[in-house]
């Protein structure tokens, strides 16, 4: 059994006095594809932002690669940031830069490669996500799916051990969505990186997820944890079975 790369203990999160989730405990193991599930508005993306240190938890701790996440401790925070890559929901590519410049930005900042080598490396990164040849396009010239793939390429720029993906296949057609899933699986296999994915696309979950947790808005806690294929049929929680079998709540 591999050891956990991310440990969350007693995490309570929320905004302005309102808690979204209380007392979350879970581990993410090295090399797995870990999926965070839940209904709309339950705090999946917020949890992701806590995991990468953009939000401060109300209480509890997050440990990544043995280091305690604390945005106040700049040195440790930057060492943690060096092991992670994040793909945001809308891609969050810098709109004033071309695709190539977007991917090159972290490489130029954190490595001593010269311009020519960086250009080659950028081409390799874009090749991995199937966007070779688009180096000189601006983000606005790309489709939604291409933007997401480009954002993955940028997240991969420094070969982080852990990749966080926020709704990678949301808003994509079934083919692009399936391509993105295949890409995640291939990257996971070839790079050995840990993936933490927020999604609620059922087909995606069954294709990529090794393990899932499901957040529940009402009880503000994790109501299921494990293999989605097993949970679909055996979970004692009606919401979990509804979710996996795509049934509306009112008819349950």
């Amino acid at each position: 059994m591999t050891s956990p790369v991310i440990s969350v203990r007693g995490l309570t999160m929320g905004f302005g006095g309102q808690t979204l989730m209380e007392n979350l405990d879970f581990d993410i193991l090295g090399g797995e594809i870990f999926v965070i599930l839940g209904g709309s508005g339950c705090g999946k993306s917020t949890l992701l932002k806590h995991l990468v240190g953009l939000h401060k938890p109300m209480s509890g701790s997050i440990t990544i690669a043995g280091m305690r996440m604390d945005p106040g401790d700049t040195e440790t925070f930057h060492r943690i940031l060096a092991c992670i890559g994040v793909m945001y929901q809308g891609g969050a590519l810098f709109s004033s830069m071309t695709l190539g410049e977007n991917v090159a930005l972290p490489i130029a900042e954190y490595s001593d490669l010269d311009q020519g080598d960086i250009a080659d490396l950028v081409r390799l990164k874009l090749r991995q996500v199937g966007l070779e040849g688009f180096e000189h396009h601006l983000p606005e010239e790309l489709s939604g799916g291409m933007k997401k793939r480009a954002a993955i390429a940028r997240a991969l720029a420094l070969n982080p051990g852990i990749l966080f993906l926020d709704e990678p296949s949301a808003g994509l057609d079934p083919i692009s969505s399936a391509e993105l899933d295949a890409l995640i699986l291939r990257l996971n296999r070839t790079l050995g990186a840990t993936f933490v994915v927020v999604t609620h696309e059922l087909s995606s979950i069954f294709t990529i997820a090794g393990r899932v947790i499901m957040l529940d808005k009402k009880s503000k806690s994790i109501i299921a944890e494990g293999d989605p294929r097993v949970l679909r049929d055996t979970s004692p929680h009606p919401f979990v079975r509804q979710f996996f079998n795509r049934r509306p709540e009112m008819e349950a």
Partner: protein
Amino acid sequence: MTDSPTLTVDLRSDSLGLALRGALNLHTTPAILNRLAKLPLPLPGRISVDMGGVERMDDCGALVMIRLQRMAREHDSAITWQNIPEHVQEVARFLRLESLPETTRSTKTKPGFLARFGMKTLHVTDQAGNHVAFVGELTVGLFSLFRHPGRLRLGDTITYMQRVGVDALPIVGLISFLLGLIMAFMSAVQLQQFGANIYVASLVALAMVRELGPIMTAIIVAGRSGSAFAAEIGTMKVSEEVDALITMGFQPTMFLVAPKVSASFLVVPLLALYSNLFAIAGGLLIGVTTLNLTPHAYMLQTMNTLTIFDVNWGIFKSAIFAVLIAAIGCFKGYQVRGGAASVGQATTSAVVTSMFMIILVDSILAVILRYWRP
């Protein structure tokens, strides 16, 4: 009572008979509701509604049923529905008409005075904390730039120097020229009475170089670039680009704010100098055309009036205004939460706050100068 195509009313002393017909939708419902509201009160004890003729009903049409039910309840009348077609029943089931809440008015109550006072206080202290944190971060960032100038993103800085400075040249030139022209024109009317034509040159030069040049330039820069900074950073916040910067290990202040502040600091004083030149040119035009001054005499008087201190003082003030405008624009951009409306607010607020701060700081500096150099 008259009948309409969709509603027949049969009012007797002990009963009210209504018949609905045709399509009940957004077009026909208002007229029906209107007629129901005009029925003479009190209503009789029994109301019967015949819905047999209803061909179509949507959720708007359902309002008629809700209104009738409510009227019956208010007047203690017994209501009976007759001949409800299957398709109407289907709509009623879908809308769950039987369980409609008593009133559909807004149930959100306004918080009490104390609660609002508390929320406002929390908001203000939160804001104050943000201000202090931002100013602190910016100061630390700029000082570290003095020690390691290589950390400034040079490409971005040059781009912003162009946007703030070069691109503003036409508008700053035009406005300053016209300002000098107007000033000379207005003062000429007065000074001519005393034969003091030549002092028009002094007035234009001194007023522009000491006060109006830096202020006009700063106001134009606030409107052109301060707003642009706020909108740019605000949009980056909305699209999570700022978050992306942080998780890529960049400091947003160094990455986004420092180039804008440095670029403004470098070019706005130059813009102010340029503005002075154009204003003096405007004054010169009036002096030569309407006051019978020679260009040589006008320029000589201008040079005699101005000291090098006046010029330096104007440049110094411009540099302070530049840092204020850029920092306020960036800060307001950072404050953006949510979406497009918030970006608009940030942009407005950046310009208004900048202008206020420009005038405030200018007044403070004027007072300081008065006592420092009597």
